[in-house]
């Protein structure tokens, strides 16, 4: 099971992705589990991606599926993107679709 740590407050839900890789080996389960969490919460979500070192296009597909499952008005912020993860969003132009916050040290 993909490890997701949930910290819920009145105003929002912070989900820490406690996986080093969001890849084809885990993408489907990651998508299903995360979708379930954000749909259950019905509040703005902040996804803490600091621990994710690597994401491939199937991981990206999972993120997109989760975004699509949420009502458009509900914010989904991706926080702490590491360089490898940020690269995938950037190269696929999905950095314009998501609200992403790369980690400060992300300079390449």
């Amino acid at each position, binding site marked *: 099971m993909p490890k997701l740590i949930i910290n819920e407050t009145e105003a929002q839900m912070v989900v820490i992705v406690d996986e080093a*890789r969001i*890849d*084809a*080996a885990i993408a489907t389960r990651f998508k299903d589990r995360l979708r379930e969490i954000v749909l259950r919460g019905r509040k703005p979500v902040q996804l803490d991606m600091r621990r994710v070192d*690597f994401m*491939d*296009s*199937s991981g*990206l*597909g999972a993120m*997109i*599926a989760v*975004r*699509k499952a949420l009502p458009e008005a509900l914010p989904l912020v991706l926080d702490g993107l590491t*360089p*490898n993860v940020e*690269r*995938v969003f950037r*190269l*696929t*132009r*999905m950095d*314009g*679709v998501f609200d992403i916050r790369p980690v400060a040290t992300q300079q*390449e």
Partner: protein
Amino acid sequence: MAHTERQNAGPDPRPATRVRPMFHRVLHADPQEVRRALTDLRARFAPAITADTLGRLELVLAEVMNNVAEHSATQGVGSGAMHLCIVMQDGGLSCAITDDGGKLPADCLKPRNLPAIDPLDLPEGGFGWFLIQGLTQSLCYYREDHRNCLAFTVPYQQLS
């Protein structure tokens, strides 16, 4: 005599001792083994290339191998194994991936655009070959008897 031969085959060849990481693996085409191979690859190349180069290498290999696992090895032909070989050369990280699964559709190699981004219906797939094409040089494909052979280089920045 050919220029290239005269240059290289004199009585005193240039120093040839050079140790650069290299990676060779035969693996079953499945996402768990792909992950394991990439983790080992990362450990192998981390001392030699920048984190940025390593990230690009890992991404492109993940895309290629996951495609084999998902599409080529599932067509009911072949052994379900693939071969991976990465060599660090002057011109780039030279990569070859071969498998004995179904044939690669020609349009994977044709210049690709991103899937259309419709904000009301975002695409959830179809990024793989776009990324592969964008991150590689000299991408080429060859169908050998019953094998798919894909080769390319990934430009690198060496760690000093």
